[in-house]
């Protein structure tokens, strides 16, 4: 069994519509089921350098540590009494858990432009109207005493964390003071070992809390 020639394009499409980590989890489990660890090794060789999040998830699986189940309990605790949550960046499987856990909160999604563009209508259709599209220029409308900003963190090194590039445009000094809390949800078990392509580096200090494994 060898990796299909369409695998790079398939991962790119999946990452655009599901998010890097969610797509990596899906790819890893499907490849493992289809061709065992040999296929994971091949996928890491062929795709790893282009997609460092996939590289990490594959390496974890190869080391016998499959991705843990997604649990939103801690993130809900970190959000506290926020009734409005603005999510920056996409991780579909994590967002599914958050939507289920926050039954009464108003949820918005900012995607921005990170080089991968999915069909936003199709992305939002999976949340049954619970998650609204928020454009960059509309972020101020979501600010307030009971509003929280949340983004997905792809590991941290020292005082810095890796996030979706959209976060850099959203979480400027002026915006930070307008939200009750800034929460990071670390979706990776450990920091990436390759150059974090598709992601951006940001100081961890502004986050009220970073939740994760």
């Amino acid at each position, binding site marked *: *069994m*060898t*990796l*299909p*020639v*369409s*695998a*790079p*394009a*398939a991962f790119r*499409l*999946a990452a655009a*519509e*599901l998010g890097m980590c*969610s797509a990596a989890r*899906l*790819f890893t489990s*499907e*490849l493992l*089921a*289809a*061709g065992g660890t040999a*296929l994971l090794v091949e996928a890491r060789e062929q795709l790893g350098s282009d997609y460092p999040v996939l590289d990490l998830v594959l390496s974890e699986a190869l080391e016998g540590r499959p991705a843990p189940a997604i649990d939103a309990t801690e993130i809900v605790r970190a959000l506290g009494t926020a009734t409005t949550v603005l999510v920056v960046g996409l991780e*579909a499987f994590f967002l*599914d858990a958050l939507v289920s856990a926050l039954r009464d909160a108003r949820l918005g999604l900012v995607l921005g432009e990170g080089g991968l563009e999915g*069909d936003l*209508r*199709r992305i939002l*259709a*999976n*949340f*049954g*109207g619970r998650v609204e599209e928020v454009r960059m220029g509309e972020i101020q409308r979501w600010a307030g005493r009971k509003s929280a900003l949340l983004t997905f963190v792809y590991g941290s090194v020292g005082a810095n964390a890796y996030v979706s590039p959209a976060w850099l445009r959203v979480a400027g000094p002026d915006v930070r003071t307008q939200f009750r809390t800034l929460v990071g949800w670390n979706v990776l078990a450990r920091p990436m070992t390759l150059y974090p392509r598709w992601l951006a580096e940001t100081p961890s200090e502004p986050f009220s809390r970073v939740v994760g494994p």
Partner: protein
Amino acid sequence: MTAARVILPGILMTALALQALLPKRRVLIVTCGAGLSCLAATLLGIATTPALLAEVPWNVLVILVALGLLSSMLAEAGLFDRLAVIATRASRADAVRALAVFAVVMYVVSGVVNNITALVLVLPVLHVLLKLAGPRQRYVSWTVGVLLVACNLGGAATPIGDFPAILLLSGGRLTFVGYLQRAAPATAVALAVLLAIVLVVVRPARGVARDPISAQLTRAIVLAMHRRVALDRRTFVPAVVSLALMLAAWTLLPASWGITPELVCWLGVGLALALRHRLGEKLVRSGIDSEATLFLLSLFVMVAAVRRAGVFEAVARSIQTLPISPTGQLVVFLLVAGLVTGIFSAGPSMAALLDVADSLARRLPPHAVYVGLALAVCAGSSLFLTAATSGPLAQAITERANLRDPEGRPLRFGFSDFLPVGLVSFCVIEATAIAYALLALRCRPRAHVHLGTSAARNLVR
């Protein structure tokens, strides 16, 4: 031959050729061509611009816009996301099966809703599968092309599937059942033959990965992309109820009431949008495909100028004065109808050719002429990408999908990409049209013709 008969068709042909060569400038090219046609017609004393605009079949544009809005509403309801899952499961994400499954689905759907609607609904789903399959240019061209042709065949299968058939129905030339029982089997045979040729002889899936891992990944990704998509009944029900009412009105309302298909469509879609007024307002403001509408409008203006120059009448006269039997004249007519439709598109050419068909139907069994004409127009609609209303739309949607091959090269679906599909499809459908007409003529004494009232009056007259 007058100057008008050279200049006006010349402008049309030049515009069509240029837009085929420069697909990224096609709307600008045909819009300028339409303006030049108006200027030439005015200077040559053929017609004024208001006169040419008055000849534009606005009913086709109304149907195009209205059904486009309805399709947007159905898309908002999540219907096509559900279709994505069903189609992916049915095709098992295999390249060959996907081509056949989607073609059959499009054929069936196009028989019930306008083929533009059907295409807008299903094409984005196919694009996802194509992206995941690691497609080659040849596979994309043939898959999207066959899909377009299946749309045309489905549209010709029922009297409400496409505008030419609606014209026949609304004009009282054939009854609903009379058309359906003749056209549906003929188009089904044409589709089966076309699929057999494409899958067995052309084999466009050669070079496309068909390994089980690729199929498994594709299925998993498509299912994940639609993992929690549910049908929004608040939007779906008004859209479907309106569509059902429109179908009933198209089928049951007598032509003598004057409630034309485009009016039914206008009111039906208006009702659906009004029932979901917030979404309806949003769609009306931003959901109209102005690109396809402007393209067709410009095409219609140029064709109107050519018609004013008397080109279509000259063709009709030539056929009727041919020194051959009426059967031979019918065969020639069907061939000409197919070619003329290929060049001028279905709406305008159908309107022009109906006069010729009416005169032939006085001497031959009407169903042989009219159903044969509908099939020949379907063949012509399938000849060039610009011939069918849905062609430019499919081109635009496919370009927006930004398909790439496994090496990252962009994949196109333009005029030249569709041409091989168009030529094969034209031959298959045109042959079916002629075979149907000859068979109908041979069975003439036993044929039971369902004629509407106005056509019967025409025949008596």
